[in-house]
């Protein structure tokens, strides 16, 4: 019992330290804003733009699979024109944010952890400190902010590509009437409940994943195994955090019937 308590205590302590770490990273204002912007956009490129391919390809495949599955079920009830509705609601509410989050944790989160971990191992973080430059401000803050900006945008792109690919399958292959495909979607998708809730979800996932990624990189053991372990932890913890948070957020957003 005592070990359980102390384990729980340790976990809470870790979360607290990670919180202080994040707070310090984003609350120390940059000395020069042009420089800070440059660092931020460089990260937008490596975190966001480089993740585009995997997001677009996965979005397309998931949209196509959803259309096939949805069609085969809906056609039993003669309501295959509702496939547009099914596709857009599943993607916008759930699969867009969640799958983007999982892919992002694997693609960008692990890269962030490994990069910061390697900087620590090669004494670059110590170098910043010895130069009187705060590595939290210089290294962690632009990466965190860029990650948090990119993920909601990636999630929206994921959903849009998914809907478009699903449209190709259902309209041009399975022969659903195009007009009813789009009108069923238009009638049932609401901007502030469906689209915005999806964006809010992906924003929350983004904060969780990028926070875990930069923190794991920053505290990793400065050895090659240490970096390996930290990278694995980022992907595992990040994915679990997304799935857990998704349940909570879905219950809060759509749970009151």
């Amino acid at each position, binding site marked *: 019992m005592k070990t359980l308590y102390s384990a729980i205590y340790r976990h809470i302590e870790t979360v607290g330290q990670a919180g202080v770490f994040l707070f310090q990273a984003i609350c120390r204002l940059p000395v020069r804003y042009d420089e800070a912007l440059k660092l931020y956009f460089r990260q937008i490129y490596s975190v966001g733009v480089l993740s585009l391919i995997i997001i677009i390809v996965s979005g397309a495949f998931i949209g196509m699979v959803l259309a096939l599955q949805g069609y085969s079920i809906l056609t039993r009830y003669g309501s295959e024109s509702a496939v547009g509705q099914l596709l857009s609601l599943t993607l916008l509410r759930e699969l867009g944010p969640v799958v983007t989050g999982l892919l992002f944790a694997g693609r960008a989160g692990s890269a962030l952890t490994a990069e910061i971990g390697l900087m620590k191992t*090669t*004494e670059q973080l*110590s170098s910043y*400190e*010895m130069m*009187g430059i705060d590595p939290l401000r210089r290294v962690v803050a632009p990466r965190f902010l860029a990650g948090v900006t990119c993920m909601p945008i990636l999630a929206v792109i994921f959903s849009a590509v998914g809907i478009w690919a699903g449209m190709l399958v259902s309209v041009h292959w399975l022969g659903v009437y195009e007009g009813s495909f789009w009108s069923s979607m238009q009638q049932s998708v609401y901007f502030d409940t469906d689209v915005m809730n999806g964006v809010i979800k992906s924003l929350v996932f983004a904060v969780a994943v990028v926070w875990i990624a930069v923190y794991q990189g920053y505290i990793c053991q400065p050895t090659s195994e240490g970096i390996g372990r930290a990278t694995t932890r980022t992907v595992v913890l990040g994915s679990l955090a997304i799935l857990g948070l998704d349940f909570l957020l879905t219950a809060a957003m759509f749970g009151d019937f």
Partner: protein
Amino acid sequence: MEVYVDVKNLSFYRADRAIYKDITLQIPKGKITAVMGPSGVGKTTLLRLIGGQIAPHSGSVTVAGLDMSRASRKELFDARRKMGMLFQSGALFSDMSVFENVALPLQEHTEFDDVMIRDIVLMKLQSVGLRGAAHLMPAELSGGMARRAALARAIALDPDLVMYDEPFAGQDPISKGVLVELIKRLNHAANITSVLVSHDVEDSLSIADHVCLLSDGRVILSGTADEIRQSKDPRVVQFLQGHADGPVGFHYPAQDYDKQLLGMN
């Protein structure tokens, strides 16, 4: 003799192993102090203690009147602007070119415009012979070049205190000669206080005004280069002549060799 770095009764432990046991040493202002000692004795650790990156378990480190372990974060960062440190591994920022590496401290800590910064960076790179390599990324440099680039970065802000961790390792005789001259020149022209960690006994003794010899967590001798050369202390003699057998342990603390080979614990 004016003291720049004052280490008083300092003890420092890694896990349970004492790296330093109650050492006291002084680094005079405007002089070159060489810190020597066997590998693993804690020379790099000493530089980190002076830079305030790690705190001693007891005792104090005072740099230019500031107690590093009691200083606030801001005081510490301000103090470090007047220090340059050459890391043993070089530690260049891998996402920036050599030029950007040297320019960074200037951009962060001065109000100079870009033209001025460019001129200073080129001057510093010229002094280590790497002006032509300004556009290269750290991954494209050899080990010795990376260390020289890091040296240019360490002196970019014309600090009051420069700490060199093994500047000569991996340098050919020509570069080494240039570096020795550079360190001497910086020291005498700009009146910089230098701390030089090196295994290179002859080079260190030739440029150092003051030498500290560390062994087994203690300062075994502290004095001028001549005093070291003339010392009769068997530990000093052993170190200077490089004998494996003698009072200075070459081995990391271990259990008895014969017993371990025979599988007895």
